[in-house]
């Protein structure tokens, strides 16, 4: 077959794998071939993209902008708006961000975690310097979950599927990324994750890429709407209990990029500036503005 091949770096535990499995089930509708390349971590995905082993990975637009400012020609197309969440014990006394004061907070991914930075910005609006007033515990996501379960931290800010797993086990979600943005006065649905690929590659594969995006959208809808398709995906969730599976599906579907996807430039710019100030340039790099071309547009 002379179908164009798209090579995609897929994290074994990520939702992209679900989608692709549905998508690949519909070979007759699509005019391209997907070649999945399993990667273990997000970093492994980035390496794969840089070394040219894959064409597309899933990552975030802040990173894309940062890399662009360093001369790389990556670009971003929205994939999901799901974001991490702040979890506490069901009967915890913590009910609002300001209750975190003096508590032990577990944070996945380190001090440049976007949710953590935005949470700090939100607390700032309430005149609370979170960075100084909570006892931070950074660690790998699974360890952070474990810490919460063992009661070694009072709250945990973790990636969304770790949050979902906690939720299925009866933990309470205090606030999620979307909620934090709302609190900061940003109502728009901003994508957190997206397909990232080389601009040059995209330019020469416009048609295929477009049809890939279409198919992926369709796959998403199938996953959320059709029971048989979901059943096929269940083993990929790597969760044994139905509650967790359901929670994962729910969170995943909530994150669907319903609108055309491209965020309004000035909203993205606002978040960018926010992250830039809170992280003291560390997350975004030197560039004062979101790099033009960070968001890919077909035309």
């Amino acid at each position, binding site marked *: 077959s002379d179908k164009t091949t798209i090579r995609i770096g897929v994290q*074994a*535990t990520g939702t992209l794998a679900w989608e692709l499995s549905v998508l690949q089930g519909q070979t007759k509708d699509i005019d391209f071939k997907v070649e999945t*390349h*399993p*990667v*273990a*971590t997000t*970093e*492994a995905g980035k*390496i*794969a993209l*840089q*070394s*040219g*082993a894959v064409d597309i990975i899933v990552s975030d637009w802040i990173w894309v902008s940062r890399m662009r400012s360093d001369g790389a020609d990556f670009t971003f197309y929205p994939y999901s708006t799901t974001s991490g969440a702040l979890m506490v014990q069901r009967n915890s006394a913590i009910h609002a961000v300001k209750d975190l004061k003096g508590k032990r907070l577990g944070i996945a991914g380190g001090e440049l975690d976007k949710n953590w930075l935005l949470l700090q910005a939100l607390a700032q609006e309430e005149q609370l310097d979170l960075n100084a007033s909570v006892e931070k515990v950074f660690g*790998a*996501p*699974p360890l952070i*979950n*474990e810490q919460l379960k063992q009661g070694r931290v009072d709250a945990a800010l973790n990636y969304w599927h770790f949050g979902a797993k906690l939720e299925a086990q009866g933990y309470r979600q205090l606030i999620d990324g979307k909620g934090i943005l709302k609190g900061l006065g940003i109502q728009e649905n901003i994508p957190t994750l997206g397909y990232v690929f080389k601009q040059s590659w995209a330019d020469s594969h416009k048609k295929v890429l477009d049809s890939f995006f279409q198919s992926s959208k369709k796959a998403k809808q199938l996953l959320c709407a059709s029971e048989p398709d979901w059943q096929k995906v269940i083993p990929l969730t*790597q969760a044994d209990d139905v509650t967790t599976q359901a929670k994962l599906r729910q969170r995943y579907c909530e994150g669907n990029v319903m609108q055309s996807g491209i965020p309004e430039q000035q909203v993205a710019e606002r978040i960018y500036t926010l992250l830039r100030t809170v992280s003291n340039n560390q997350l975004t790099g030197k560039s004062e503005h979101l790099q033009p071309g960070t968001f890919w547009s077909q035309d």
Partner: protein
Amino acid sequence: MLISLRTAVPGLSLLVLLAVWQLLAVYLNSNNLPAPLVVGNVFWQGCLSGQIPYHLGVTLLRLIVSFSIAMLLGCAIGIVLGRNKKLDAFFDNWLIIFLSIPALVTIILCYVWFGLTESAAILAVVINKLPNVIVTIREGARALDQDLLEMARSYRFGKRKTLLHVVWPQLYPYIMGATRSGLALVWKIILVVELLGRSNGMGYQLHLFFQLFDVASILAYTIAFVAVIQMLELLVLKPLDTKAQRWRR
């Protein structure tokens, strides 16, 4: 009687280890330390499904190739640096630098430059392991017995004979040390290498289980690897030791 005791002791020590593990598991009673039986079961399932043999095999292949390259090159360079003061003065710096470059850096650079290929992965392991071998063997080469070297020279042993019969046996304990602790090191590095750029192997799998916090599976895979290393020790290293140490009184 004596011989049976000698073979019994290692078995006994294994049993004691298992008992300690079982006790700890019972005492902690959390799924952070599953009991041996649970892990054994997972291990067995993994073997039956072919998952463990597959990933173990892939990793072992990488391990053997990169370990052999690193040991051969490392011995050669180590001997040269240990015997040649001038070269040593020049390359000493490089050695220290390569010793202290984080594995992460070399792995990323290897992958980014040479692509996510098998050879890049192996190269990354070799680069990480090589300086360690060199440093150990260099110490050995510095401590060579001058008397015996002079003897070899006056009886015109030549390069090959000297290396084989005079230098090698003296380096043997260093090489054994580098082999044993080196296997462990390569194994540690290979896990990271696989984590960052391979789609199979123990490192890839272990990370998966870590994400799922599946300690039983992590331990099952660990057991598989430990078993292989034990076999290697019993079937290759121990007999080599016995043979090489025969001459000691």
